[in-house]
């Protein structure tokens, strides 16, 4: 493909950790390494910190609740005019807007621009939930997207439900080799270490289910160790737990990227007890590419990644007794665990960025095939005329 100038818009605060942000960061860095020019317009909370060269600050985001978590997004007249300036000055062949259907910077950029526009939809929510509820108002804007990408089948169905439009499914990519070659660290490794990563005070992350299973698991495997990584308040979870079991759970706090890679590689089993609201489960694919066996709740997103239990074990969602059963069985069976890990590592290759970026590039190629370039839309030109 010929080298093009891409304008990428991130809806959420760049310096807040999140799946969408890391998706954009990885995709951008990959596209740059392929020789494309990429500029990322994004809200930034703390602009005193240094950011990547390709990042353009659009302003300070505000926190609003979306899809059960708190999202840091940005909109308003100032952001809108920054987006317009960025589009006018950028001389882009194509704009790639992430999550253009929620009130955010992406939506502003989409409404201000004209030409080849590609949108990626990350969210999957049950029908009639508030997030895309303003469908009819957004329709003229979302309609402008030349091509749509959904990060999972579930995200695609959400899109179909709300806008009656279809999308190409391209799953999130991860840099598999980083996880596969991560350093094994002693404090995370051991024959009976079970790991969990996530903002665990959000109920949908399901840490409670894992903690509840500890009482049963420890009866069969007395030296079991649960390692919980991620920001949050741990006292909530320890309150209802037997005093004697407290030393079986270690809260590690937030890990750096490098620590996370080592963590996933070092532990014996990764457990994802999420109770819902996930559209892809990137951490599962990361654990798989680290070569670690995985157990996950049987929510649709996880079933898809684990290929219906072929490359990782599933347990009945929100059922801690079933989780305990599956966990004990897998911890005791070394042979099956390593087989599962090998199968998982192989299947995770399809999420590698190399493959994913190639698919994204062919969408770009189709989108720019008309020969148009990105410009300000006629409406916004009219309004910005002095």
């Amino acid at each position, binding site marked *: 493909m010929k080298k093009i100038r891409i304008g990428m818009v991130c809806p959420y605060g760049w310096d807040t950790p999140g799946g969408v942000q890391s998706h954009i960061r990885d995709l951008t860095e990959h596209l740059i390494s392929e020789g494309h020019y990429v500029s990322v317009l994004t809200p930034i909370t703390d602009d005193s910190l240094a950011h990547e060269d390709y990042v353009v600050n659009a302003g300070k985001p505000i926190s609003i609740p979306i899809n059960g978590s708190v999202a840091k997004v940005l909109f308003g007249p100032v952001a809108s005019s920054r987006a317009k300036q960025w589009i006018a000055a950028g001389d882009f062949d194509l704009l790639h807007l992430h999550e253009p259907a929620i009130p955010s910077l992406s939506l502003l950029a989409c409404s201000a621009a*004209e030409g080849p526009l590609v949108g990626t939809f990350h969210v999957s929510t049950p029908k009639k939930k508030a997030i895309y509820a303003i469908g009819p108002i957004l329709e*003229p804007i979302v*309609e*402008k997207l*030349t*091509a*749509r990408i959904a990060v999972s089948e579930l995200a695609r169905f959400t899109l179909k439900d709300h806008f*009656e*439009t*279809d*999308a*190409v499914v391209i799953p999130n990519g991860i840099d598999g080799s980083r996880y596969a070659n991560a350093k094994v660290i002693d404090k995370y490794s051991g024959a009976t270490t079970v790991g969990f990563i996530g903002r665990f005070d959000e109920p949908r992350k399901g840490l409670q289910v894992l903690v509840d299973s500890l009482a049963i698991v420890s009866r069969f495997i007395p030296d079991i160790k649960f390692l919980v990584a991620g920001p949050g308040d741990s006292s909530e979870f320890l309150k209802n737990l037997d005093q004697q079991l407290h030393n079986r759970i270690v809260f590690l706090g937030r890990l750096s990227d490098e620590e996370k890679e080592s963590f996933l590689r070092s532990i014996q089993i990764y457990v994802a007890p999420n109770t819902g609201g996930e559209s892809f489960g990137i951490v599962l694919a990361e654990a798989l590419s680290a070569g670690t066996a995985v157990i996950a709740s049987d929510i649709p997103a996880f079933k898809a990644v684990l290929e219906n239990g072929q490359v990782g074990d599933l347990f009945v969602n929100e059922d801690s007794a079933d989780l305990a059963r599956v966990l004990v069985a897998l911890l005791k069976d070394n042979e099956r665990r390593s087989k599962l890990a090998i199968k998982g590592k192989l299947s995770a290759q399809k999420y590698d960025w190399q493959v994913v970026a190639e*698919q994204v590039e*062919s*969408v770009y*190629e*189709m*989108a720019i*095939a*008309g*020969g*148009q370039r990105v410009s300000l839309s*006629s*409406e916004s030109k009219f309004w910005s005329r002095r």
Partner: protein
Amino acid sequence: MSLNNLLLLLSLVLIGWYLSFLASRLDRLHHRVETSWATLDSLLQKRAALAQEIVQESNLDPATVYLISTSATSARYANMSDRSAAESVLSESLKLVLDAARSNSLQLPSELLVELSDITSKIKIAINIHLEAVVATKNLRQKLFIRVFRLAGRAPLPIKYAFENDVLENN
């Protein structure tokens, strides 16, 4: 000027603005239908040519060669109304190539096989993009305002091709 006149003027301006907004929206969509079709069309032409090349370079049996080569020809020269059926037949018969490749009985320069799967995945995306544009255009053209004020002008109603996504599965 009385208040009534002012209101009338204001609503006329609003209606005018809305009409021009709708018209530019529709124009954008029509344009997209055309460009996305042009992209898709050229990809399909390329695939037909590739199919001919594949049968020439491979050791496929005469029956398969005949099937692929005739379906490629008819896809190439089909008129608009027969186009999607002809392309579907070609997709079906190209599956035979993949089957042969899977059973290791195929002798074919590997770059042709790579090119085939490459073009197949591109066609999938192009179909998706084109159909989106067609559906959006059709939906918009059903709007009352657009029909009453004939904002679509003399642009023909886009045709929704019945490309079946499943005939393009290539794994």
